[in-house]
């Protein structure tokens, strides 16, 4: 990436040892819509607010939670278009792995490769870092897993995490509510309650998105009808 005139990196160290571009990218993430993920004993749930700029926008055309493979899903906070680029690249990497090994890619490997892409954009010539943090949820032979990947390319495994606007309140809420042996349906309720905490306006099945993966290893984005059922249970 970057043609010959831009063979120098735009992300450079400041005297204090920081990469200011990455700090700015994290700021972009921090002002994005809240998203969160919770790893339960028998699955993983990821969720996000889906606040659209106007009531005229067709909400069925927007899907913030995407699947990378049949058993791995992802949600983001930050810039939507950057997210779409990463989803495209990650899906391709997963398929390349499959073509080579005829085996579905383990979650850790896909996370590692996605993180490597994000890191490249902090060091290559003529490009800027991605303005998104990702929450990758998957279920493979090592059980349910949840990873967060930052614009710098660093990744962490979480039992529960949140990103975006309401991150500190959401994390405090999750710390209180999280238990090791939580079942997935409890986790979904907790996820909804966490989103509700910082929600501006009335929460409904059309302005949040929830993605779930259970022991059947199939990542599903819940339909508004399914979300409505969970919302009613929470009320």
């Amino acid at each position, binding site marked *: 990436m970057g043609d010959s005139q831009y063979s120098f990196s735009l992300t450079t160290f400041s005297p204090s040892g920081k990469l200011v571009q990455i700090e700015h990218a994290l700021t972009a993430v921090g002002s994005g819509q809240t998203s969160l993920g919770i790893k339960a004993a028998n699955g993983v749930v990821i969720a996000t607010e889906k606040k659209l700029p106007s009531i005229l926008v067709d909400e069925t055309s927007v899907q913030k939670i995407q699947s990378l493979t049949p058993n791995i899903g992802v949600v983001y906070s930050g810039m939507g278009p950057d997210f779409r680029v990463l989803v495209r690249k990650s899906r391709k990497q997963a398929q390349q792995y499959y*073509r*080579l*090994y*005829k*085996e579905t890619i*383990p979650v*850790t*490997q896909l996370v*590692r490769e996605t993180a490597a892409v994000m890191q490249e954009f902090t060091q290559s010539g003529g490009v800027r870092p991605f303005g998104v943090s990702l929450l990758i949820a998957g279920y493979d032979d090592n059980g349910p897993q949840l990873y967060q990947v930052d614009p710098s390319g660093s990744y962490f495994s979480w039992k529960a995490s949140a990103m975006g606007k309401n991150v500190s309140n959401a994390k405090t809420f999750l710390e209180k509510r999280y238990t090791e042996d939580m079942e997935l349906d409890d986790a979904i309720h907790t996820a909804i309650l966490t989103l509700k905490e910082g929600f501006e306006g009335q929460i409904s099945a059309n302005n949040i998105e929830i993605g779930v993966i259970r022991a059947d290893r199939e990542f599903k984005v819940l339909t508004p009808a399914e979300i409505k059922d969970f919302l009613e249970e929470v009320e």
Partner: protein
Amino acid sequence: MSIFEYNGSAVVAMVGKNCFAIASDRRLGVQLQTVATDFQRVFKIHGKLYLGLSGLATDAQTLYQRLVFKHKLYQLREERDMKPETFASLVSALLYEKRFGPYFCQPIIAGLGEDNEPFICTMDCIGAKELAKDFVVSGTASESLYGACESMYKPNMEPEELFETISQALLSSVDRDCLSGWGGYVLVVTPTEVQERVLKGRMD
């Protein structure tokens, strides 16, 4: 003379009861001249996965080195050994990369899967996989090997009987092929141990 017959080789693998055996001859020739009688054609990838390579010796060695390289990186990245089926897919992909300038080898892959189920397969020089439940053969002596294995093989043999069967099949087949022979090398792998044996056959 075909490039596959330049060095001469015979490799065979058989499935037994919770075990497998892989065997090869030991001759390395340069057309009709014998140059070595201790040439290694069966290589270890990890404790429960072995690779036999017949055909052009230089390609066999290079292919083995490339595969070990890939497997070592895989082990470091994924913190586990490769399953035999996965390894077979990798070999197939590697061979097809050179579709229009291939490695002149016919690999045989033999291993124990996660649940210690034996797995064997072979493929042609451009990666067409062939799975088998009983035995696979390759090399200049392959036609004789097919016949010998077909008649001598029984399913669910214990390791000792499997060793006897694969050794007899190998030795009788290489005796019918002037380019392979000069002894045999047999490996019998069970979930708990690996037995290597060197056979003395007709030294010609």
